[in-house]
């Protein structure tokens, strides 16, 4: 231990843990993978006064969904112990190759998907979206997100949002190829140095303009800008918050009716990590014809899809919990399962195929759903 100030056990106040087991009892990962037990990790750390050595699956299995944090009666953030262990391993160099590749890609190309910067705005080539000019006032800056920019399935979130903005008369701009990874996943994978670089680069980019409101596709980008950055001097909203405001102001009008039984999967970084539960539901219920049903595990009890905390680049055995969400959707009789996060969308889309429910349940992002009903 170099100094008491840097001691992660002190920093995270792990001596405050009373081993009540609420964290491990409610952890979505422990539900499917016996090897991961956040309570045991904390116990080991406190007893040995140092970060414990864990198996690769334990270190990289945590999705940082925040269930342990919101339930901890001592107001601790148990999952951050895992982040400290990740940071230590990152300094030592011994991390899974898929995580390594994602981090190196962020450093080199500004996205974790191994794609070049020149193709970042390829998804919007035919949409003629304007970029802001230096010093310009930008009433609405749409922050697209690496996954929406590059992932073929998630790209449709971007196209849907552009359609919604245009049909509601919103004047918006994007950074195009200059947009950079927000760093939320980098932070949660424990690469603090790289995260600092991203914060600096992004603030330099943002400060070239007078942004009034930034809207993100992804709850992960939202979380980064809202909770991890210091120095952002404009309002940041997840798009569900903006659409909810538009409904309140009577500006979002639907011309089509969708006569379907619809359910909603809460993204952890929107719900558990940022307490946004009502806005998505309000949007869904505003769409004419919809019969909304809740999943069995919902809101703060929602089950993680296993896309957060670097888990898009690391797999645990036995499938993903997204499959259980599809099973739940099936049990409650939903024809459409909605979500509001590109990672959840990708995982649920995979899960509907691996569970053989492709023909029964449709997976959609709220943005796509709203765009269809306009």
């Amino acid at each position, binding site marked *: 231990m170099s100094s008491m100030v840097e001691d992660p056990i002190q920093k995270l106040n792990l001596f405050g843990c009373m081993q009540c087991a609420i964290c491990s009892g409610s952890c979505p990962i422990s539900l499917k993978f016996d090897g991961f037990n956040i309570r045991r990790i904390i116990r080991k750390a406190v007893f040995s006064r140092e970060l414990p050595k864990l198996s690769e699956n334990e270190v990289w299995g945590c999705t940082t969904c925040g269930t342990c944090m919101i339930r901890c009666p001592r107001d601790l953030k148990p999952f951050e112990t895992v982040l400290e262990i990740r940071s230590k391993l*990152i*300094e030592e*160099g*011994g*991390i899974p*190759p898929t*995580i*390594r590749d994602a*981090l*190196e890609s962020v*450093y*080199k*190309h500004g996205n974790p998907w191994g*794609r*070049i*910067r*020149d*193709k970042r705005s390829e998804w919007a080539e035919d949409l003629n979206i304007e970029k802001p000019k230096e010093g310009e006032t930008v009433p609405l800056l749409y922050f697209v997100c690496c996954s929406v920019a590059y992932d073929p399935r998630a790209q449709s979130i971007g196209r849907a949002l552009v359609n919604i903005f245009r049909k509601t008369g919103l004047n918006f701009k994007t950074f195009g190829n200059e947009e950079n990874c927000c760093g939320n996943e980098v932070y949660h994978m424990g*690469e*603090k*140095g*790289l995260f*600092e*670089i991203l914060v600096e680069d992004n603030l330099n980019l943002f400060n070239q303009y007078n942004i009034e409101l930034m809207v993100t596709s992804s709850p992960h980008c939202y979380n980064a800008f809202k909770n991890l950055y210091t120095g952002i001097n404009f309002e940041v909203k997840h798009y569900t918050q903006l659409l909810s405001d538009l409904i309140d102001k009577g500006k979002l009008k639907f011309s089509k009716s969708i006569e379907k039984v619809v359910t909603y999967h809460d993204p952890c970084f929107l719900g558990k990590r940022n307490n946004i539960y009502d806005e998505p539901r309000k949007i869904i219920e505003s769409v004419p014809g919809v019969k909304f049903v809740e999943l069995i595990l919902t809101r703060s009890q929602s089950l993680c899809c296993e896309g957060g905390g670097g888990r898009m680049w690391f797999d645990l055995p036995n499938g993903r919990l997204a499959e259980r969400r599809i099973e739940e959707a099936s049990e409650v009789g939903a024809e459409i399962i909605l979500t509001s996060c590109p990672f959840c969308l990708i995982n649920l889309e995979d899960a509907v195929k691996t569970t053989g429910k492709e023909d029964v349940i449709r997976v959609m992002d709220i943005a796509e759903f709203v765009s269809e009903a306009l």
Partner: protein
Amino acid sequence: MDIIVCVKHVPDTAEAELTIDETGKDIRKTGLVFDINEWDNYAVEEALLLKEKYGGKITAITIGPKEAEETLRKCIAKGVDEAIRLTDDLFKGSDGYTTARILCSAIKSLDLKYDLILTGAQAGDDGYAQVGVTLAELLGVQHVSLVKKIAEVKDDALKVHRELEGGLEEVVEVKKPVVLTIQTGINEPRYVSIAGVRKAAKKEIKVLGAADIGLKAEDVGEAGSPTVLEKLFIPPVTKQAEILTGDVSEVSKKLVSILKEKGLI
């Protein structure tokens, strides 16, 4: 065991749309991201693994402009002990042979001690795959190319696996000192953190030119190279693809007749 590892700073061109520059002999580099050559990354990792097991010192050498120090910094951050950058306007236009000559002169004039020299099997930019074996020849030591595994390290020799065509592997025993050209997949290169690279920024990198390593203008660059790059061009797009339709036996017959017609069988 002292190891020299030769590394190259190359552009990442996997997805980039490349264009030829005004000289007609190079690609436009604007907007390209540079990093350590993929094969060299495995060579560095292999050197680190050997150092961790048997001790000794690792020296990384590159030939390249100031920016190439980024690759050397990464090597230092991973655990390489010394780094040398060879740079000179005279080096421009050096082919694989002359590149090996520059490396050889540096190793000899600096009197670098080595049991092993590792290079990547080839470079991702020019893909010549010549430098490692030529360097061995110039130094008068053994070499083994396309090494996939270092199976055994003895006092005076190594047992290594090399990759052959058709999925075959050859196992050879070779006396030290030796040059190994490393194939990708031999190991899993470690991650180097930003904090690690920042710490490595303080470490001195030795920078040397042609004269410092005893080379004259006629020894290097185009003047010293047996091969000269005349022209670089993007192959023209042609429309030769034909999709055969029908059941398996029909498609097979058509395919055989096409292959015969073209004199391929």
